[in-house]
């Protein structure tokens, strides 16, 4: 049989035990928090990687990415023809609208966008929350290297893909006739 008042005593024990332990409070402005490397603080941009494909701007759920660009014609190399290339004029993220979903970073095919754990960029004017590309580039310095993979984790897919591609290219170089022959044989029935 449980003694009456056991529950009451347990309640007292819980609070007393909590008191003897260190409290979990971080003294934030004095002591900076230690954030994990993939914390969603701010989005950084590597301008050179951007091809103005507009995927990020279109996938953004609240349309907070603004991209302006113009086309530039590259003079034809010898024996070729002229090519056109997109040049980025403006890349801005309005962090007053951003909801930190990270879809733009996931969707970017050219690794131009990165998460940085930096978060202290509050402003007194909401218009200053729109970070232009210079400022987004500055955040790149705060992007930490990706954490090491877990032990026993699968190897990254792109590594395997690259190795496979390399092996294929090697085979091709060794036996070009066989490879093309096989290709022709496959193509033939269709």
């Amino acid at each position, binding site marked *: 049989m449980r003694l009456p008042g056991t529950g009451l005593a347990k309640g007292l024990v819980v609070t007393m035990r909590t008191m003897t332990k260190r*409290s979990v409070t971080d003294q934030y402005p004095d002591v900076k928090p230690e954030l994990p490397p993939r914390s969603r603080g701010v989005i950084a941009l590597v301008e050179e990687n951007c091809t103005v494909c507009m995927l990020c701007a279109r996938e953004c759920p609240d349309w907070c990415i603004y991209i302006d660009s113009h086309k530039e014609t590259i003079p034809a190399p010898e024996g070729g023809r002229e090519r056109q290339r997109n040049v980025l004029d403006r890349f801005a993220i309005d962090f007053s609208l951003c909801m930190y979903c990270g879809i733009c970073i996931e969707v970017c095919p050219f690794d131009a966008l990165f998460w940085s754990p930096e978060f202290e960029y509050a402003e007194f004017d909401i218009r200053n929350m729109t970070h232009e590309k210079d400022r987004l580039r500055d955040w790149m310095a705060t992007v930490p290297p990706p954490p090491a993979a877990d032990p026993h984790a699968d190897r990254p897919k792109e590594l395997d893909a690259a190795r496979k591609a390399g092996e294929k290219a090697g085979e091709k170089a060794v036996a070009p006739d066989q490879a093309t022959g096989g290709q022709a044989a496959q193509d033939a029935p269709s």
Partner: protein
Amino acid sequence: MNIPDWLEVVLRIVLVLGAFLVLPLLVGQTEHKAMAHMQSRLGPMYAGGFHGWAQLVADGVKFAQKEDIVPAAADRAVFKLAPAVALIPYLVVLVAIPVGPGLVGQELDAGLFFVLAVMAVGVLGALMAGWASANKFSLLGGLRTAAQLMAYELPFILAAASVAMAAGTLSLSGIVDAWEPWWLLWQLPGAVVFFIAGLAELQRPPFDMPVADSEIIFGAFTEYSGLRFALFLLAEYAGIVVLCALTTVLFLGGWHGPYDNELGWLWTLLKTMVLAFVVIWLRVSYPRLREDQLQRLAWQGLVPVALAQLALTGIVAVAR
């Protein structure tokens, strides 16, 4: 060394006033910090530089700067008087509580009677505030205070009567003088009843139904602001000091302890502060009692226990 009478009176008044101003703040600060750490927080850390020691001073300055608002429909005189009625009784009670042998503001022959009577006046402040605020939440709070006072005053006084019977005197110093360590066991039910009923009269959690902030905002104190509100808060902490000091004097043997000839006053203060810590501890640990649970605890729990204690005390006192 001969001290002139008038100087002695002034000295006693200054000491009591000093204790009245310092001890409640000490309890309040302890509550800030102890409660915070019990909830795995740090509590105030900035005011005053070292672990927020000046937090309550800063609070006091803030309260003093705030506007003192009296609602248009309020009963102005009663509304303005209520904080004083809530606070001053505790100051008066403090005068009569002995801290060490001969160390008392004013020795009274019927000290226990005086102390209990005056302490009950403090609750009137909340009643007045509830009535005069012209606010239904305040009135509800006031009525709950009244119900609580009705329920808990009886076990409170019965428990105190038991110890008076045991000591054969109503003088607080006399009770401490008559106290012996085995009374701890003999008067244990009475001590528990006295402490719990006292908590309920102070409307401290878990008995804070009259100020249940999630239901009736802040009960009788809803309409108060600025310094008057601060006085009500101060009254709560002064009440804790008085209740703990009184429990110490009546049930824990006041200044009895090792080296009590020299350090008696320290023992009283130490016991008082330990009890104050228990008050805070209880507040952190338990949820608020519902109104019907509150009444049931008083009438079905505390009153019978207090009566049984009274009977036990009577039997032992006669047999002794």
